[in-house]
């Protein structure tokens, strides 16, 4: 998925308008693409999404901690569907603190579970204004169409 986006951009098959979003953004590493991929397949996708972010946005910052040390969003492992919602919302507190600390108005994620979780819990932490965006949604939003 990252490799495909990178290929399209590098080969000039898509052109992006980097000026479209001037909001400060941040990026969340999903456990499965990052830490767990590195463990299972010998390669964690940490640099690739950051390169895509650089092509899309003038203004974005990493969370702290990040990459292998990243906190889980709390929505993985099927927890969106177990019905243990109080636990799941509490789990997300560290993620929301991390995002709040950056001052970002938009968090970009390349994962359906992370996207669902962050959108679901932001109101619980007084962050209704936070935009949660798929990485590929960000790319699609700023496509230059001739």
């Amino acid at each position, binding site marked *: 998925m990252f490799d*495909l986006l990178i290929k399209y951009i590098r080969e000039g*098959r898509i052109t992006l308008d980097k000026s479209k979003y001037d909001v400060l953004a941040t990026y969340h590493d999903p456990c499965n693409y990052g830490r767990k991929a590195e463990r299972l397949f010998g390669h964690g996708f940490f640099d690739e999404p950051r390169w895509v972010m650089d092509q899309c946005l003038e203004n974005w910052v990493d969370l702290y901690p990040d990459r292998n040390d990243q906190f889980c969003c709390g929505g993985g*492992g099927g927890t969106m*569907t*177990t019905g243990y919602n109080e636990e799941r919302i509490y789990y997300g507190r560290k993620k929301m603190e991390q995002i709040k600390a950056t001052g970002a108005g938009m968090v970009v994620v390349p994962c*359906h579970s992370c996207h669902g979780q962050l959108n679901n819990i932001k109101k619980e932490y007084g962050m209704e204004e936070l935009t949660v965006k798929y990485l590929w949604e960000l790319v699609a939003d700023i*496509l230059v169409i001739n």
Partner: protein
Amino acid sequence: MTKPDEIMDLSQIDHGVFRSFPFLQDHCITCGICSSSCPVSGIDGFDPRKLVRLISLGMKDEAVDSRWPWICTMCGKCQYVCPMDIHIPDLVRAVRSMRERDKVPGILHKGLEAAIRTGNNLGLPKEDFIFILEDVGEEIAEEPGFEGFTVPIDKDGANILTTIHNKLVNTHTEDLKHWWKIFYAAGEDWTVPSDQWEGTNWGLFTGDDQAMKTMVGRIADHMDRLKVKNLLWPE
């Protein structure tokens, strides 16, 4: 001083119970770094070290009946920091697999059963699925710059096959559009299967290896049948 047998039934301890578990649980030095790293530590009395200890002591019923394996997200932070490299997320998944299927919490097993039976977690019929895809495709075609856009369903010899996350044909159809617009702009030759299209694989969460294999096998079959070389599976 409290005696150990006042806290727990020592007769339950049997190191042989989980001997077949390959997760190195007996290597635990009880340092607690896993528990410090875990965002779910403290909820319901859980922390990863306690679960590893339950397994090491062979306390099967306590582990399997507990909510602990299900409130863990298997994020792998614990394993990443563990000095003994204990495979804690895999251990959690293995404990989940030992839960009776009708006691798997929430809709996880029900969704998986529907997927095995119908090809997707929702039990969405093929004609409804195709209707939704084409409807969303028509919306894209109405946008400036995307004239003539159509959804290439079951296209032989396409370059890329995509799966669909069930929520995108349920409550989040707008989110189908992002990848499709990118494909259009990039001139990609892509396709989506008309049935057995489910991109989630809840056997990962319920510990059901057989179901996982079935779901993955269906995707592989599509690729063989349609002679597609690349798979985009962003779920």
